[in-house]
Each structure stands twice: as structure tokens, then as C-alpha cells.
């Protein structure tokens, strides 16, 4: 994952959150997830695709998302769509609160610097 921030550690910490959040409304396949995140963050977060699939597989193993193969409407090989599980929705809500708390904790330092 790349971004306009230089701190790779901060960016890595947001990977799972972005993936879960991108699947909140509808099931998506890998390429669409990448492009959804790019569009919704106005290009701020740009996954290297080689990062995306291992991360998706890890979330799937944790039971936070589940995958289903569906035919491609472009005539290509079947796509693997990922969607949130109930556990994943709970985890997304937890991570969202965590992100909010993190930002709130940093805000005083950012505003008065």
C-alpha cells in the first residue's frame, strides 16, 4: 500500500480497516476494491496489488470476510467476490471507533503545532 504520507507503519495499520470498509455496502472483487479505495480516498491510498490479495486471504481466514466465485460479465475468468461476514461487520465497527479515537487523540497536537 502506498500513500502520500511517508510513514509506512501508519499506512500498514489502516490496511485492514480500508479493506473492511470498502466491502461495507456490496461484495467486490480485488480490482474493484483497489479502485474503490483509490476513488473514495481521492488517490491518497494506493494499494500495491501484491499486498491486497494476501491481506484479503488473511481476513478470509479470520472469518471477517467470505468469498464466492461468480462469472465475469466481461467474458473473462470467474471473479472472486468478497463480502463482509457478520463478524466482519462487528470488527469494522470496532476498528472505526478505534480510528476515531486515534484521530481524536492526535488532534490537539496537529492543531497546535
Amino acid at each position, binding site marked *: 500500500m502506498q500513500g502520500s504520507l511517508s510513514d509506512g507503519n501508519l499506512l500498514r495499520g489502516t490496511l*485492514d480497516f480500508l479493506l473492511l470498509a470498502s466491502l461495507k455496502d456490496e461484495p467486490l472483487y480485488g480490482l474493484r476494491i483497489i479502485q474503490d479505495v483509490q476513488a473514495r480516498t481521492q488517490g491518497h491510498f494506493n494499494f500495491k496489488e501484491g499486498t491486497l490479495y494476501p491481506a484479503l486471504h*488473511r481476513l478470509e481466514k479470520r472469518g471477517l470476510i467470505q468469498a464466492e466465485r461468480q462469472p465475469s460479465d*466481461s467474458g473473462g475468468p470467474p*471473479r472472486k467476490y468478497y463480502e463482509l461476514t457478520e463478524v466482519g461487520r462487528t470488527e469494522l465497527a470496532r476498528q472505526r471507533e478505534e480510528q476515531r479515537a486515534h484521530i481524536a487523540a492526535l488532534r490537539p497536537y496537529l492543531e497546535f503545532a
Partner: protein
Amino acid sequence: MTGEERFLNSATRGLIKNARLAAQAELRSHLHERVQQLVLAGEPEEGARVQAIRELGPAPIIARSLRRGEHVHPALSALALTGLAALLLLPLPTLFSAQFAEQWLAGVGATTATVAELRAYGAVTLPEARRQLRPLEIGLIRKDGRYVLTHAGLPNAELGGQGAGFCSSPTYSQGQDTPTFPLLPLPRHFYISMPELLSCAAESGWPLDI
């Protein structure tokens, strides 16, 4: 074999058969979709194929990342089991020192999160944290069984001290992927989050300018 097939083979090397086929199918679908997008945007097909593969990143890195989350090839598993068996035959109990373990784990916490999960949340090892802090002339040392941040002219900032809010002590993973010392079942690395270090410094009254 096409360049795309060579790439897919390389990017999934080391995975067991079913996982490898599934990963190849997913990456193949990704490449197909991306090539179509690029062609529709006016890119010549051959250039689109090259760009789609380039966007996926280096194949060995993908393979390494995928192997972290999957079972590895039986040949590699057998090698690992052989190594494990050799280790178990050694007189570990006589080598293990409870006193050393107590000293080593002083001032750190434990978590059930795996190393991969800690990394995903942005945690770094203490040596990595020290490297990032060194240009700021901030030290991260263990003193009297506690980890503290040091800086000339400022009070020591204790990690995970009493009343600490967002400031936690270093932690080690109890997950199966945590590296341990040879012959000693002790975690080799402790992890810390850099934003939490910032909180530790702030809670100790350090003037911060971000």
C-alpha cells in the same frame, strides 16, 4: 508458456496445490480485467499486459506474502518438521533458565495477536523503533525493569506507566508466528506502536511539534 503464466507460477511458488491453483485463478482474473480496462482506455494490448503485471508488483514478494497466510508445500513442511524434531531431541529444559526469562520479559506485556496482525496494525520492533527515534536524539532503553524514552534535558518518559492512557509498554506476540531464540522458547522481539510512543512522550510533558 506465456509471460503471464510465468508470472503466475512465480507469484504462487511454494503454496500447496489447491491454494496455488486458487491464487493463480484469482490473479489471472485480475490481470484479465485490468488488461481489458487499459485496452478500453486506449492502451495497446501488449502494453496493457505488461502494465497490468507491473502493477501487481514483484512476483517473489507476492509469493512470500501469500505463503505467510497459507500452508506451504509439503516438501517445505517436511523440512520444517525435521528441524523441529531435531530441536525437540535437544535437552531444552536444562538450557532454559527461568531467571533469564523473568529478566527478559520484565516491563513488557503479552498479546494473543499474531506478529502479522501486530504488523498490520503498524507495530514495529524495538530496534526498528530505536532506528526511527535516533535522528530525533531520543533513546528507548530499559531502566530498572521498565522501558523509557530518554532525551537530553527532558524527564524520562515511562512506557506503560501507571495512569497511562494511550501509552502502552512494549508487547510480545503469543501467536505461532512469533520468532523465538534458538533453543529458548522466549520471544525474540517486542513490539511497540510509534503513535503510542508519541502519547508516552506527551503524557510525560515533552513539548511536541508534529
